[in-house]
């Protein structure tokens, strides 16, 4: 759907984005992650054609971006504001018409989403009367009012309470099942793990991790296993490898990606009775921290 090829952007002689390439598959939920100042927002602004890249190309559906393609993109910027003095519904309708909807169609969609987000009673109120969380919902509605096929959400969960985070997550799942492509940037790993199929992690404008979430986890896995057993620990003492730990009824250790856990289990099973097995996957957060700190060390 979207392809970035060696995209760079320099601000005041420092590279905000440095030779960044990635590909967002159609219908995927794509996570753009990185610490603050990594270049996520700059990347998104370049995709949105708000700023131009100094180098590289951004293609949508294989074609260079043009103005009419934007009719098909919904964008929720990281830093958000609204016309505080304006009424809720008319503001939504205005942004709908700017995205090419007719006034009537825009009003229809506005009604639909106000209902869905439980904002109907505020339709004719001024935006300043809404709570912050509700204002964020309005901004989300503005981003999707024109039914885009591609939705770009910059830190969408920031500042939302748990209930509204859930509402937003349901929305994203709904879009996903409707076949829409979603890019979202965040530093909240937990959300990415639950929602994204593909991720790109950047730090200091450079790509540090990229690929299917599953593959990345496997690739970077320092997976750990934990086996509890009934029997004498001396019986399995001879299968212990370097770095494993053996206690009275428990064996634990790390497995690298070349090792199949089944092989270990077979060996243990042949000597003692296994009562419990745990395989602990590394969290994305851990990978993230490792990568970012590794980056600083480098």
């Amino acid at each position, binding site marked *: 759907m979207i392809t970035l090829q060696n995209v760079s952007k320099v601000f005041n002689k420092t590279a905000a984005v440095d030779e960044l390439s990635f590909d967002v598959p159609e219908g995927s939920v794509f996570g753009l992650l990185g610490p603050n100042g990594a270049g996520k927002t700059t990347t998104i602004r370049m995709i*949105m054609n*708000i700023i131009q890249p100094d180098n590289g190309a951004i293609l949508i559906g294989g074609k260079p971006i043009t103005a009419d393609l934007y009719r098909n*993109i919904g964008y929720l910027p990281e830093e958000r504001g*609204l*016309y505080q003095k304006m009424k809720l519904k008319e503001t939504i309708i205005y942004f709908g018409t*700017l995205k090419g909807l007719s006034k009537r169609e825009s009003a229809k969609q506005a009604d639909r989403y106000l209902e869905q987000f439980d904002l109907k009673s505020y339709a004719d109120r001024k935006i300043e009367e809404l709570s912050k969380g509700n204002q964020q919902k309005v901004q989300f509605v*503005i981003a999707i009012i024109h039914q885009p096929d591609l939705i770009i959400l910059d830190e969408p969960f920031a500042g939302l309470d748990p209930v509204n985070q859930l509402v937003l997550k349901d929305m994203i799942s709904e879009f996903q099942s409707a076949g829409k492509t979603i890019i979202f940037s965040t530093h909240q790993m937990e959300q990415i793990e639950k929602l994204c199929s593909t991720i790109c992690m950047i730090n200091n404008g450079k790509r540090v991790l990229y690929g299917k979430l599953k593959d990345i986890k496997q690739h970077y896995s320092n997976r750990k296993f934990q086996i509890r057993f009934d029997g004498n620990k001396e019986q399995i003492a001879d299968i212990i490898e370097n770095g494993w730990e053996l206690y009275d009824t428990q064996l634990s250790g790390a497995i690298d990606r070349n090792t199949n856990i089944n092989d270990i289990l077979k060996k243990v099973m042949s000597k003692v009775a296994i009562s419990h097995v745990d395989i602990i996957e590394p969290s994305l957060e851990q990978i993230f921290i490792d990568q970012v700190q590794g980056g600083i060390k480098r």
Partner: protein
Amino acid sequence: MRNIFVIARWEYITRIRSKWFIISTLIIPIVLAGFMFLPALLMESPGAEMKLIALIDGTHELSDRFEQIIYDRYQLKDGQPKYQVIVLRNHTVEKSIETASDLLDSMIIDAYVHIPADIMKENNVKYYSRYLGNYRDQDEVRSVINSILLERRVEDAGLDTQLVKQLTRRVNFEMIEIGRTGEKKQKSEIISYIIPIIFVLMLYFAIVMSSQVLLRSVLEERTNRLVEILLSSVSSTELMSGKILGLGFLGLTQLLFYMICGSLISAYKGLDILTSYHILYFLMYFVLGYMFFSGIFSAFGAIFTSEQDAQQAVSIISIISVLPLLMSSYVIVNPTATVTIILSHIPFITPFFMILLIGMDIPPTWHVISSSLVLIVSAVLSMFAAGKIFRTAILMYGKRPTLPEIIQWVKSS
């Protein structure tokens, strides 16, 4: 094109129904009317209170006649005499003056008049008051004394008082101004002085206020970052054009409202205050002046990050452009002076000076053309530069660009 229209309509509709716009549009004619007519009304209307005046008559002969005339001539609204005269007759004139100043100091009397014994020869009268600002009272007292002395002199010369009164009666002074087309217009002096100033105010408020609204609108979208959503939907040129167009119509609405008010007043007063010829020039100078100012103001909106910052720069421009107001009395007296003509070619001032001169029917065709050409060129340049600055600066946050940087943007394509 559609986007420009959508933005223009939004800007126009959301502003025109704002309380702020309605109040500021209505308040200006009201305040103006207040400024124009209130002092006149206050001065025209007879004072509501009776004034107490002490008279020290060195001749001992004139006081009766003084009282008689002043009671006859000046009355309050309710028919009571305006002045109550106390004639002081102490042993000596010096003693009387002493008493009078005591009375004045203790605020019992408002003024006292000393007519010396040698008045017929020396022709000198002294008027004492705590406050000389009320020239109306002084005029009236002087006029009464003049009348008495004239009578006395006529009598002394053995002439017929009635005949002399007949012969020396004052002329009725009616003022008529000849317009450009040669027709005679009957105007009072005050109106021909005030009309051009009102013209300038009308144009000034329409142009400068809508430009300020434009500035605030750009700043608002920058500070609440809505500009990102907008620029992901429309181009920066469309955004700027839409805003300028929408708020231009806002200013035009205001101007039309003022012109309708003006026409109603003209019709009511039976004067040719606002002719179709004036309206045409108003529209022309509004469009050109607004183009020039809105370019500058929208660039300011894109450059500055806070309203306070921008407001300082804007107030400088506003002061320059209000110069025609401050200088209007000079221009009205010297409409063809070189200074007037030179200043009218400075684009910040041109629309206001020209409408001032047009309000007076003064400028020759060449002057209108040459100053308009300067304004047209400036307006086009202002739009062009603003477009470039706007495009570059609108998404810059944190650091305010320096002047050389701005110049660089304008030069680069």
